[in-house]
């Protein structure tokens, strides 16, 4: 059996007195799309941010392809922070896409995508831009390479952000509510890019409110509620009736809001 792409072990996260995640234990399998769903405040985004090492776990640990992320147990059994270079090496296997896109406004689409290739990997400008262009082609935006983020629609910005993460050839892509700040009309183009990526065999972890996407593209679903991992399995297992009571309530609220995606 291969090592999981990400292995989360007894992860607890507290902000001050508030416990956001409680002893989360689960694995992200290689080459699959795993979706994290759950109500607001359930801790799903925090869990994803822990996997990107944007948040540090209070307790527990995370392994990325078997290598410790951020902290490792020392000889004394205590967790010790790894050197910055090692943290960066492990993190480089991970690409992150944010709800707010987080493109750098002073750089063009091409500049955003080629930046880390130039600055981090030291690739000469011309070659970096060629590689960035290939990524922009993948998200069907090569004709917008010279545009600044403010000149692009939300959907286009998010696709540039995906290309930017892909440029570094990560092994795992994390998506934090990638369509939540988009008009319904623009979510489709982003979801299509994500579908294509999934079809390519990319390991993906998606925090999403798009239950339809989770059900159709997700090969693994994890349902979180109040910082606890309640359900974890294939969509068939999770949506099969009789459903878990808490999941049923959660799905009901979607229908209440008139969302037709489940029908």
């Amino acid at each position, binding site marked *: 059996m291969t090592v999981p792409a990400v292995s989360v072990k007894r992860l607890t996260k507290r902000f001050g007195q508030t416990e956001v995640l409680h002893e989360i234990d689960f694995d992200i399998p290689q080459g699959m799309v795993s979706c994290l769903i759950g109500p607001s405040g359930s801790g799903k985004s925090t869990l994803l941010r822990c996997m990107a090492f944007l948040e540090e776990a209070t307790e527990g640990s995370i392994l990325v392809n078997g290598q410790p992320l951020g902290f490792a147990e020392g000889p004394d059994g205590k967790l010790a922070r790894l050197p910055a270079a090692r943290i960066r090496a492990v993190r480089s296997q991970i690409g992150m896409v944010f709800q707010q896109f987080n493109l750098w406004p*002073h750089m063009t689409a091409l500049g955003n995508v080629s930046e*880390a290739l130039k*600055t981090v990997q030291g690739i000469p400008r011309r070659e970096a831009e060629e590689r960035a262009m290939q990524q922009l082609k993948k998200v069907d935006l090569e004709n917008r390479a010279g545009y600044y983020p403010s000149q692009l629609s939300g959907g286009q910005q998010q696709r540039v952000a995906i290309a930017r993460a892909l440029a*570094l050839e990560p092994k795992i892509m994390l998506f934090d509510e990638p369509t939540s700040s988009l008009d319904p009309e623009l979510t489709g183009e982003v979801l299509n890019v994500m579908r294509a990526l999934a079809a390519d065999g990319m390991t993906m972890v998606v925090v999403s409110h798009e239950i339809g996407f989770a059900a159709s593209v997700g090969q693994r679903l994890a349902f979180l509620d109040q910082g606890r991992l309640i359900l974890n399995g294939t969509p068939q297992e999770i949506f099969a009736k009789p459903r878990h009571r808490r999941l049923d309530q959660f799905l009901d609220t979607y229908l209440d809001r008139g969302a037709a995606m489940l029908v």
Partner: protein
Amino acid sequence: MNFDTGLILASLPEIMHAFSVTMLMWVAGVIGATVLGFLVAVARRYGPRLPRHLLRVFVEVIRGTPFLIQLFLLYYGGPFIGLSLDPVPAGLLGLTIYGAAYFSEIFRGGFEAVPPGHVEAAECLGLNRQQTIRRILIPEMTMLVLPASVNMAIILLKETAVLSIITVPELTLVISAIGSQQYAFVESLFLLALFYWGLVEISGKLGRAAEARLSRFRLALA
């Protein structure tokens, strides 16, 4: 009131020299204050706790006391701690420190106004802290702080007049001296006001042009 411009014209070489001194003090002062202010802002964001607190106190003291007093203390009090400076270096140092306190606050606000997600994106892509500051924070902050920085540069231009009290041979000292020698106080003061106002107008125009050039990014930050 009779304006006797002839008296002023006779002193033109002196005035031109004084003008160049004012420009030197201003330009060098703004550059010095910007650089020092930026370093203070970076140290206050990333530095260890003790220097951070000391710098906060420094900024509050400088902002909380009149420039005139600071200048007196530096020029007349300096020798007591072994710091004897000629008027021009003393004036430049005073202006730099005074401006730096304000610029550091402008830059601190600028750093805080850059959306944290932009820094997180850089972090996720493997940029280290220096690279993030150089490639992301400084360019983004620049467009955010430009209006406030132009404003501060204009204030510093007018503050160069205060340097006359420690005998820096700049416009205010020279023109008011000419005015009192020639019994032409009003003319000289009027001329002085015109000089400063003209310079402020020009720098304001330059600032607005720079803002317009950068405005295409601002949308995305709003």
